[in-house]
């Protein structure tokens, strides 16, 4: 059984007058431990797909099964709980809370979890350690470089030990060197920790870090192929 099963998924946005179809029936599976890159030009529906897969939005038609249960069986609060416990999000714009320390930012998902408070500090420190930021615990995001900020966001995504990491253009706002570091970390999460990763990008180079690339065009799957020559992360963490 796959972790993610999508069948004929459709999403249409309703404006006052206009109906804009974003997804026109996509079907695919993602196995546990897979690293999938979704590519496509703007308006191809890749962000919409990621939002639906990440329980941030519901589909208009079709079926989405996560971990053996369809999204329609979840109430809004249960979706929130699932996002908190099973999913981690990494955004292009980092989305860290300003004037809040790195450590507190990483603790944020734990605030909404059932994890006892006594365990928060250790979990957050461990997550920051795994992205190589143990020396920045009490800095504020504004004092960090772009690459460091994205690594804080990755630590935040990791802190509650999720099954899936959703990354929406994680290197889009970074220079190539920081981007590379971030991709190394993401790859390591997938390979060493066995987490499922679903990544959106429009850069072929970035996408080629994944095992599989799915290309979307105008709300439909254009291609879904295995990556033959994956880019491997330099072992910067060693």
């Amino acid at each position, binding site marked *: 059984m796959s972790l993610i099963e999508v069948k004929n998924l459709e999403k249409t946005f309703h404006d006052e007058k206009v109906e804009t179809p974003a997804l026109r029936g996509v079907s695919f599976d993602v196995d546990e431990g897979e690293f999938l890159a979704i590519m496509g030009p703007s308006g191809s529906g890749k962000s919409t797909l990621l939002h639906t897969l990440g329980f941030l939005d519901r589909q208009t038609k079709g079926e989405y099964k996560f971990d053996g249960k369809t999204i329609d069986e979840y109430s809004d609060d249960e979706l929130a709980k699932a996002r908190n416990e099973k999913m981690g999000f990494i955004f292009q714009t980092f989305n860290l809370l*300003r004037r809040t320390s790195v450590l507190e930012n990483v603790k944020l998902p734990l605030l909404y979890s059932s994890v006892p408070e006594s365990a928060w500090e250790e979990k957050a420190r461990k997550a920051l350690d795994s992205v190589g930021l143990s020396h920045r615990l009490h800095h504020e995001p504004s004092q960090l470089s772009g690459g460091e900020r994205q690594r804080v966001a990755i630590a935040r995504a990791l802190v509650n030990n999720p099954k899936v990491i959703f990354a929406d253009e994680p290197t889009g706002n970074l220079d190539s060197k920081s981007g590379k570091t971030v991709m190394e970390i993401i790859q390591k999460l997938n390979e060493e920790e066995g987490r499922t990763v679903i990544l959106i990008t429009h850069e072929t180079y970035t996408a080629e870090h994944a095992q599989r690339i799915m290309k979307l065009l105008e709300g439909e799957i254009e291609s879904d192929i295995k990556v033959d020559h994956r880019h491997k992360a330099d072992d910067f963490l060693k």
Partner: protein
Amino acid sequence: MNIRHLLKTSSGGLKTNKSRSVLTILGIVIGIAAIIIVMALGQGAQNLILGQLQAIGSKVIAVVPGRQPTGPADIIATFTDSLKEKDLESLENKSNVPHAVNIMPVVFGSQTAAFESETYSPTILGVTEIFANLYNIYTADGRIFTEDEVKSYADVVVIGDEIKKELFGASDAVGEKIKIKGRNFRVIGVLNKAGQVSFINFDKVAFVPYTTAQQYIFGIKYFHRLAIEADTEENVPSTVAAIQTTLRNNHNITDPKKDDFFIETQASAMATVSTITGALTMFLAAVAAISLIVGGIGIMNIMLVSVTERTHEIGLRKALGATEADILKQFLLEAVLLTAIGGIVGIVLGGLLSLGISLLLSHILGVDWKFTFPINGALLGLGVSALIGLTFGLYPAKQAAKKSPIEALRYE
């Protein structure tokens, strides 16, 4: 999310925008402070008046001629001449009013008193020998006039402290003669400095036998007032009833609505005063409360701005697992915290200001104005401000909770 983290999150949200938070609560601070000041001063004024009334004594009943004023047009009716010598005699009859122990007729007015080249305009109170007991005042020098002197229309006077100082300075007054309305009165006593008691400043009063006052000073045959003391406080109501019956008989009145006199007791006067000052205080507090509503709208306004500004944060929190209820609680608590802080600051500020005003009033008016902190007002203020936070915070908080996480994350 437990309450402690909710508090931490909400207070963190407020700290991020410190100056705005401070400006936002200003309306609440002013509103609550105004309510506290109004209530503290109202309470102080009421205590002052009640204190004066208490000095009259709880057993003393005042019979006043005329109809009790119920409106501006009735004021004139209070100056009538319905209480006569005949009424005094009937009331002194034990079979009519069994529990009356002392009855003192009173006439009063203002006249000029002169000693050699000095003049002074005291209040002349025509009374009987029991006045010192009734009003609880004592002579510093000399004596009070006797029953015989009252009966014999004696030209004697007991003067207050200020009159003595104005007319005689440091020299002895007792034995000297002062001129009131062309008649010589022998000063037989000087009172202790007493100050303001039961609305009369006894330091400015000259006491003469009422008989002399009626005959030679005012030229009247009626009384301005009858002061009647009951034997015990419990017998005050029955004595009031007995006085009413006796006077109605004397005046041939069958319909109590047509009474040409009315009766005041300490209890009734206190009740009247409490009602009036209480109503005034409530009215002023209600006016002050309007500023609270304005302050509440200010909070709602700023909270709405804050929700829009922090759309991104809301989206992020939701993406990370916050439920609608979590977001609602966070923003609602921010509003309640704002108003509660405003309420506390307002209470402290109002308390300090009213203490200052009380001291100032004591100093300027020369009265014993006691400062009482209105605990009721403070509790009311806190409750009202928290309620305002809840009421005016609910709409913005709902707006925040309703935001869809993707819409919120997209918002730049």
